[in-house]
């Protein structure tokens, strides 16, 4: 696009982000402050992810963008258009064909392979934020590995509800060191973080933080011996493709309580049905 550099950001900004990303990869799960820029879409709509994608994208890369697991949700469409416009890269909806996948709230069902990069959009990068609002304090807590409060919070859930009441943005410990917010993915997706062959990058634009899980890094979801971590299960299968192992969205079909369950990952569902768009 005229008047703008390849992939919108100028090369100096990209270099600044590259340096921060290298640090993030070197210290898995550690939130690296970076000089986040304003992007031409609102904060909270994926500016962190967009900045990371913009800085790592090469002219030959194939890009996939999903939101809620789907390629055709409005914000995914909007971000894909943005990169078509400012980088002119090829895009795809096929998880297997993509080099870079930018996502909001999901990890694709189709297993990722080595060489792929998954970029997460992160609203609040600090997993301790809702326990301790001060950034000064939480940074200190990370430095001292002082994570007891997080377990206390999960314990209080159990005492109150009988379950851990965190269903998304479920905290994880990366490589046995940093407690990390995996972004608001359902806890259903947490096991996919562990030992994944793809590089996973997390960008929080408004909060100006980025972090990473390098390929094949051990990632565990926090839990207790007598209350082990477990993922959501459905009594249903996908009404379209019949999958009984994917994350399902509930769709209300009429005003008489009729509902159906379908895969949230549209590419996975369509591939199973054999009608890849």
């Amino acid at each position, binding site marked *: 696009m005229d008047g703008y550099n390849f992939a919108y950001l*100028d090369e100096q900004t990209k270099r600044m982000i590259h340096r921060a990303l290298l640090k993030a990869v070197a210290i898995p799960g550690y939130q690296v402050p970076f000089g986040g820029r304003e992007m031409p879409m*609102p*904060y909270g*709509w994926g500016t962190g992810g967009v900045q990371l994608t913009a800085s790592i994208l090469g002219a030959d890369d194939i890009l996939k963008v999903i939101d809620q697991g789907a390629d055709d949700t409005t914000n995914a469409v909007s971000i894909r258009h943005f990169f078509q416009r400012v980088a002119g890269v090829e895009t795809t909806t096929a998880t297997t064909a993509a080099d870079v996948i930018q996502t*909001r709230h999901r990890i694709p069902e189709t297993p990722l392979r080595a060489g792929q990069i998954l970029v997460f959009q992160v609203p609040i990068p600090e997993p301790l934020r809702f326990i301790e609002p001060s950034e000064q304090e939480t940074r200190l807590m990370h430095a001292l590995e002082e994570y007891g409060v997080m377990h206390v919070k999960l314990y209080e859930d159990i005492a109150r*509800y009988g379950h851990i009441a965190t*269903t998304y943005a479920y905290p994880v410990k990366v490589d046995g060191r940093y407690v990390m917010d995996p972004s608001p993915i359902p806890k259903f997706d947490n096991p996919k973080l562990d030992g994944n062959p793809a590089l996973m990058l997390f960008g929080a634009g408004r909060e*100006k933080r980025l972090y990473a899980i390098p390929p094949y890094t051990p990632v565990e979801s926090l839990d207790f011996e007598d209350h082990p971590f477990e993922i959501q299960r459905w009594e249903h299968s996908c009404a379209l493709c019949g999958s009984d192992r994917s994350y399902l969205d509930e769709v209300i079909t009429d005003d008489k309580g009729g509902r159906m369950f*379908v895969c949230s990952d549209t590419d996975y569902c369509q591939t199973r049905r054999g009608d890849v768009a």
Partner: protein
Amino acid sequence: MYVAVKGGEQAIASAHRWLADRRRGDRDRPELEVDQIGDQLRLAVDRVMSEASLYDPELAALAFKQASGDLTEAVFLLRAYRTTLPRLAVSEPLDTASMRIERRISATYKDIPGGQILGPTYDYTHRLLDFLQLAGAEVPPAETRDDVTDAEPCPQILELLNDEGLVEQEIDDGSEPTDITRDPPDYPMDRAARLQMLARGDEGYLLALGYSTQRGYGRNHPFAGEIRLGQVEVEIHVDEWDETICVGEIALSECQMINQFGGSREAAPQFTRGYGLAFGHNERKTMAMALVDRALRAEELDEPIIGPAQQAEFVLAHADSVDAAGFVSHLKLPHYVDFQSELDLLRRLRREHAARQAELDSARDTASPQPKER
């Protein structure tokens, strides 16, 4: 039969076309010109420039027009443009003492060297709707005087107090200030960085916080020492050139607040200061900023932190309208997946609650005799 929701692309394109049509409005009327906005809606343009932190009246007016008059949206448009601009030079510190004054008042002295100058102000207007403007009445031109020269000295009022040592000195230690547009926020934040964040902070937000200090949530006894508004020269230093070069003038509003005494066993009591600065005519913003700046110095001045306006992380992390509007509006984005997770858990908790309740009920039924009918 449910079909996976398609058509997001088409919907976005159509929505944007509708928006553009709405913005243009009735085609029988002439389209609003950007120059008209810059000329007749100056205060809106000034606010957009301030909060976007880009001094460009024409582009700010364009942003205001493109945003259909939504100031927050206009600030965002201009800010997103600003971030793509290369940094060609860094100016010398602006010297507001040498401002070409349009307005300058002090609430602390009746008469001041250089005089009190009201300038183009809404102060003392009676807020009565002027129905003549509905009918398009002619506005007579402002009076001008020839006997006033620009050269008349207009010293900063606070410098007059300085001579007696009554007010704390601001000393330039020569250090390079952080640049909040390049460096991520790092708490605790020094005053230079705090002032930068306040300068681009949302006016309404700062006004409310400043107001809260006046109502007792971190009171600091302010006096409007001086408020000035006018043109200031911007100078840059060019390599291989001995003197600095003026590259233009910008309009600024500045507020110097005089606040209650500090002082300790070692230091004699003195007035302290709060400072506000903004692009263009933005007086309310600078006053609010000065109140909040002073409130945020509570720790440095060893004052108890009792009000929200004194809590630096809280105040600064939420001051930016681009940040705030973005994150609030993102709630409009789909959250199907997370909502589904919550729905799932809630149903499970309710099932368990019902089972427990049933258990309790049956236990009560067998344990206690039926109440007698009366």
